[in-house]
């Protein structure tokens, strides 16, 4: 079984996040790390491979050349190789451009299964898989907390607002996993040492047959006009309980007609 895991480099959680006032894009010059939600997808792919399916786990990513450093953690966990779409023309891609580039890279790999993490920690995006599945014309199951594969089908159990669903789709399929699906392993020392020698291919958008106006700034269908402060909250009150806190809360709520 060939499994492709879509992963993204995000600013490290410890690095201060800021928006570049010029481009209004996230400042990505800070230390990078693999998106923590994607690590669960990597782990799931490795478990499938180790669980008897065998095959290959390929990481597919789009980002600057330096993203390769962050992806090394997933290689150290056990993934086999990386395909990184990196191209100046792809910089500033929005959802649509990213979906096109990833779908093109995935189409070349022809995986049996494509896995995504449940969101990106930097943009809070939680929709990319559905756009990629559409571009690939493959079935999609999102928010999967339990994944089983058998008879050429993927079966995913997921939580929704109302309870849970179990959805089945024939392979090849696109699956986005929730972070409840597993507890990712830590890379072993051997894994870390071995990661450096694993293949890391870089492809450009033109290698993928994409024209420059489909991706990056030129292919954008959305834009950021301005970035400002959130609306302030009203005056806040803080009290210490002296035995009458419950009464005070009730007074506060009734003044505001909340009870």
């Amino acid at each position, binding site marked *: 079984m060939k499994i492709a895991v879509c992963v993204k480099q995000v600013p490290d959680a410890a690095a201060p996040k800021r928006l570049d006032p010029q481009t209004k894009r996230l400042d990505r010059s800070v230390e990078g790390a693999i998106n923590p939600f994607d690590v669960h997808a990597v782990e799931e792919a490795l478990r499938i491979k180790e669980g008897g399916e065998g095959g290959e786990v390929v990481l597919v990513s789009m980002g600057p050349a330096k993203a390769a450093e962050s992806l090394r953690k997933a290689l150290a966990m056990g993934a086999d190789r990386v395909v990184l779409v990196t191209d100046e023309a792809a910089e500033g891609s929005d959802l649509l451009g990213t979906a096109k580039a990833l779908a093109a890279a995935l189409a070349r790999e022809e995986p049996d299964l494509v896995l995504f993490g449940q*969101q990106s920690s930097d943009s809070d995006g939680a929709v990319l898989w559905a756009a990629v599945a559409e571009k690939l014309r493959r079935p999609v199951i999102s928010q999967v907390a339990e994944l089983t594969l058998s008879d050429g089908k993927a079966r995913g159990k997921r939580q929704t607002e109302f309870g849970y669903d179990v959805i089945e789709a024939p392979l090849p399929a696109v699956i986005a996993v929730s972070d409840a699906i597993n507890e990712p392993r830590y890379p072993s020392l051997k894994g870390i040492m071995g990661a450096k020698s694993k293949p890391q291919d870089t492809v450009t958008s033109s290698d993928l047959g994409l024209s420059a106006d489909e991706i990056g700034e030129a292919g954008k269908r959305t834009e950021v006009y301005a970035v400002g402060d959130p609306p302030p909250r009203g005056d806040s009150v803080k009290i210490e309980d002296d035995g009458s806190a419950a009464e005070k809360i009730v007074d*506060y709520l009734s003044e505001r007609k909340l009870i």
Partner: protein
Amino acid sequence: MATLVFLEHHEGELQKGSLGALSKASELGGDDVAAVVLGSGVEELAKGAGRFGAGTVFVADDPAFEKPLPQPRVDALAQLVGEQGFDTILFAASVLSADVAAGLAARLDAGLNWDLVDLVSEDGRLVGKRPALGDTVVADVGWTAAPRIALFRSGALEPKETGGEADVRTFDPRLEDFSSAAVMVEQAHEQSTGPSIEDADVIVAGGRGLGGPEKFTLVEELAQALGGAVAATRAVVDSGWYPYSAQVGQTGRSVAPKLYVACGISGAIQHKVGMQSSSTIVAINKDPNAPIFDFADLGVVGDLNEIVPKLTELVRARRGR
């Protein structure tokens, strides 16, 4: 501006979030506000959208839409947008709607802005308000071309009933082969005793500071007295104290009730982003330095084991229940 609003429904009811998006479309005006309802046996249900500002409701009544799966819905919406020329399509976030919106964006080669808390018309263009970086900033976002697709944060918009009748028009979507490949093999609904957290005007939430799963009774009793729903933080859901469907935060639901009572919740960013749009936040926590006090309207430093039962009693007495 010709706007189409995707209306989600569950067990015979149009969902509050999508009605909120419809009210928003109606408020922004434009020459035509339409809604779309996809399902099986939903024509009656669809009529109800008129009261929230839809002039026309397009209905596709087909067993293919019986289960909440996104891909057949992308087919239906893409066809409708193509035939009717809608330039703006609005969705309220949910597990289903997020996938439909993104699939539709890819199908129509259209821009999608997500996690919006508002949509306004400024200088003749539509501008979405999108909190970012853990809600420490708000970005004004827009579209370079039509069709424009907007996905609102759940709980961000309040439905406003304005009265009116909708013209119901049926249509027959053609489905792509791959769209029907995924099938629902099982669906289980949790029995909820109160309103769901996304629809509730009042939410009482519990965090790790409760001390143990049995202490959720305190939270449940207060919620019941206030006529509200119960929510939980990720920490307690991960610990198995409360079901995931109640989880509020980055990896759970976003809510914006009129009143949010946080019991034993520190206010980590993970949780904050899911509830800080609440109109009034009351926090009870024994740690005076808990970050939740930075954004609570009323912060109470004290022992929730003392305060919450007393509060429940007082609310019950006041409301006579």
